[in-house]
């Protein structure tokens, strides 16, 4: 049940009708039940996995709160991390490791009878596992007291707007909001359902990004990446630019809807994107793209590994490890590992003080900054090419095309575009990519300014705009819309 389907619309309308009439004492339970229903619509069996994770980490949190014995606390947090990573590892990576081991052994001449496990990936497992794990780690670190009730904690793990594709919330931020549901401090009780422009504006914008932009760009990307060995070099670049736009609109569209739905219910979910294509380097990019994941990796992986506290060499190694695991978090495939390694290397290459001095020595004119940011956008696109390719062989073919290793045939390609009759559509998509990057560059320092400016429009104009965006979603929705890209993770 994804946000942009009629199923979700029906679910949400029914839920709001029930929630609005629910006595305040029962609201928390109704919200939790709705979240379980939302997740159970995918699979009842995987719902039991979610419940199991919740119960286990809830109990670990309680025990951590009850003991001051350092050894016992260490054992408890180790048990939580091992259990969470084991579940994630089994469901997400079992097939990957079996396939990779078999391939490796066959390379050295050892024939292995491969037992395919055919493990099906539970939707959202990477997101809720990380979210649940961050709770026990925060309780272990004494950054947070244990949740007051099981219902509060279950709601924190399961809250349906952000359950399957984030933002990956921190317990320090979301748990207190869960605890106040149904109390006098619950904003939904008095104003959540009526003070709705902030919420509906974001929902309409998110749906527009996903349904009108991302889903209509997707076929173009698919035709460029379907068989990279036969794709023209220029078409590969266009397909890669288009994928950069698609994945941004798809994922940030989901996040916008999640934040908007959360606001309708009186919750304040964290911001996941801040004009990422205006980044001027890899560190800046990761402060702008999938902020909830990069923050999680920084706080729970990079810093515990030692961060930059043990010398420059160790800091670079830690960066590489963090980004490799970040890549693997996205999917159990070698192209994601390569993508993570690529970003790790970018962080390392951009880190030296010499490069920093060189960058600082550049003239500070806006045009130089602009060129630097556009150049980094292209490095980001090369990373997206690794991300989008479906295998290592495809990665090789994609880069052969992107680097024009088979020659440059730009003029011929333009003739082919004309013969295909697709020129107008390609120009439209390219214009859209330029538009997205342009908006990011223009709103780099304050991406929310435009939304705030809209908030000052007359109420009728704001609602007309939201209605127009939603109407566009109805009219321009593909017949068979693809699911959100990040649902596969």
């Amino acid at each position, binding site marked *: *049940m994804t946000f942009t*389907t*009629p*199923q979700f*619309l*029906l*679910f949400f309308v029914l839920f709001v009708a029930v929630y609005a009439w629910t006595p305040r004492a029962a609201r928390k339970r109704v919200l939790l039940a709705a979240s379980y229903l939302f997740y159970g*619509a995918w699979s009842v069996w995987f719902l039991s996995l979610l419940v199991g994770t919740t119960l286990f980490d809830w109990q670990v949190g309680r025990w951590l709160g009850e003991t001051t014995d350092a050894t016992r606390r260490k054992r408890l947090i180790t048990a939580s991390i091992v259990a969470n990573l084991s579940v994630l590892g089994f469901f997400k990576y079992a097939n990957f490791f079996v396939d990779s081991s078999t391939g490796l052994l066959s390379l050295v001449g050892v024939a292995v009878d491969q037992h395919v496990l055919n493990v099906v990936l539970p939707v959202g497992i990477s997101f809720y596992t990380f979210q649940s794990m961050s709770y026990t780690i925060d309780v272990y670190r004494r950054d947070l007291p244990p949740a007051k009730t099981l219902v509060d904690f279950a709601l924190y793990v399961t809250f349906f707007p952000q359950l399957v594709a984030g933002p990956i919330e921190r317990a320090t931020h979301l748990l207190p909001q869960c605890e106040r549901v149904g109390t006098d401090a619950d904003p939904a009780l008095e104003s959540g*359902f*009526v*003070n*709705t422009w902030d919420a*509906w504006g974001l929902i309409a914008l998110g749906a527009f990004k996903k349904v009108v932009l991302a889903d*209509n760009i997707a076929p173009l990307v698919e*035709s*460029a990446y*379907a*068989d990279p060995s*036969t*794709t*023209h070099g220029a*078409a590969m670049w266009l*397909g890669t630019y288009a994928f950069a736009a698609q994945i941004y609109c798809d994922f940030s569209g989901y996040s916008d809807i999640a934040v908007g739905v959360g606001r309708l219910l009186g919750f304040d979910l964290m911001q996941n994107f801040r004009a990422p294509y205006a980044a001027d380097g890899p560190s800046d990019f990761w402060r702008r793209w999938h902020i909830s994941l990069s923050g999680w990796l920084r706080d729970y992986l990079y810093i515990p590994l030692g961060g930059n506290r043990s010398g420059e060499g160790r800091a670079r190694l830690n960066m590489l490890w963090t980004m490799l695991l970040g890549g693997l978090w996205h999917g159990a495939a070698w192209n994601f590992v390569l993508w993570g390694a690529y970003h790790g290397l970018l962080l390392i290459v951009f880190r030296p003080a010499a490069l920093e001095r060189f960058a600082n020595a550049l003239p500070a004119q806006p045009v130089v900054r602009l060129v630097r940011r556009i150049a980094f956008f292209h490095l980001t696109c090369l990373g997206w090419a690794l991300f989008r390719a479906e295998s290592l062989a495809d990665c090789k073919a994609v880069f052969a095309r992107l680097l024009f290793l088979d020659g440059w045939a730009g003029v011929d*390609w333009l003739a*082919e*575009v004309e*013969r*295909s*009759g*697709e*020129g*107008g*559509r*390609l120009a*439209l998509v390219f214009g859209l990519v330029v538009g997205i990057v342009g908006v990011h560059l223009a709103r780099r320092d304050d991406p929310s300014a435009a939304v705030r400016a809209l908030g000052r429009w007359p*109420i*009728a104009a704001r*609602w*007309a705009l*939201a*209605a*127009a965006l*939603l*109407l566009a979603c*109805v*009219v*321009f*929705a593909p*017949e*068979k819309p693809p699911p959100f890209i990040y649902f596969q993770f």
Partner: protein
Amino acid sequence: MRLVGPLLLLVTALWVADALLSRDRTVGWERNTVRNALNRVHTAKDARVAILGSSTSADWLPNAFAAQTLGRKAGEIVDAHLNGCHQPCTWSEIQGLLAQGRHYDVAFFGTNLFQQCEFVSPKRQLQDEMLLPTASIPAAFALYARAEDPLGYVARFLGVKLSGVYGDTGFLQDEWRKATLGAPSPTDAWRWARAVPPPEGGTHDCSYDDDAIAYKTAVTGALLDDLRALADVTYLMLLPDDLLTTGTPAQLAAWTKHRALHAALAEARPWVRLVDLSTGLPGLPGARRREDFRDGVHVSPAGLKAQQSLFTARMQALGAKP
């Protein structure tokens, strides 16, 4: 009250859009095809034989040929097919005919493998919504419950109900997308991306997942049950496609399952007779080669002749002609 204002604005916006767009006589083409087909059925009050289903049921079975095969007058036959009308649409049409108190001596309903697994087209949802009498909505929802995602079917039904009030969104989608995004050349669209054409895929193929099969089987069973009240005898026709000769092992296995499933449906209902046009007879192969079809499922002139010959032989074997 502050929620009512925005909702009114949204409804007004939709009403304005509908009022502006509906002035165009071409908008609502799908709705008109349904209305025109219904008019054809409603005005044929003396008809004794109804041909139900989609164009693949009827485009090779003209009234005159059906009359000749059954030994009846051409005026006794009514072509009750609708463009793209699969099992749920036909079930809805049958509900409407029953509500009007219609009764026929003979009903034909044809279905093919593609119809067993394809169900997401906005056109088909629009047909279901338009044809279904209000009294049959609970029965339709009960059929949705047989699928793995009942909420999805209910939501689509309600969505199209809204669309029926405020415009034909399926038609708008097609036309506006063409107008704004362009219509790719069906033969040369691949040229912008690649040096060689992509491999040809099946023209009418879809995934044979359990959800679609379970739902469509339940609907087929329901429509055959309701045909007992609508007609004395029902001929359930298994219509061929080009996958019978070009299909992959998986597609051929799906065909085998499809035949067995419909044989069981007919076997369990004494008023239903199975007319299998997907398997030939000695010296009569029927339409099954790629050249027998225009697009994989609709017969070409060559296929028409083969299909009609096989149909006549099958009907004779069933003793259809008095």
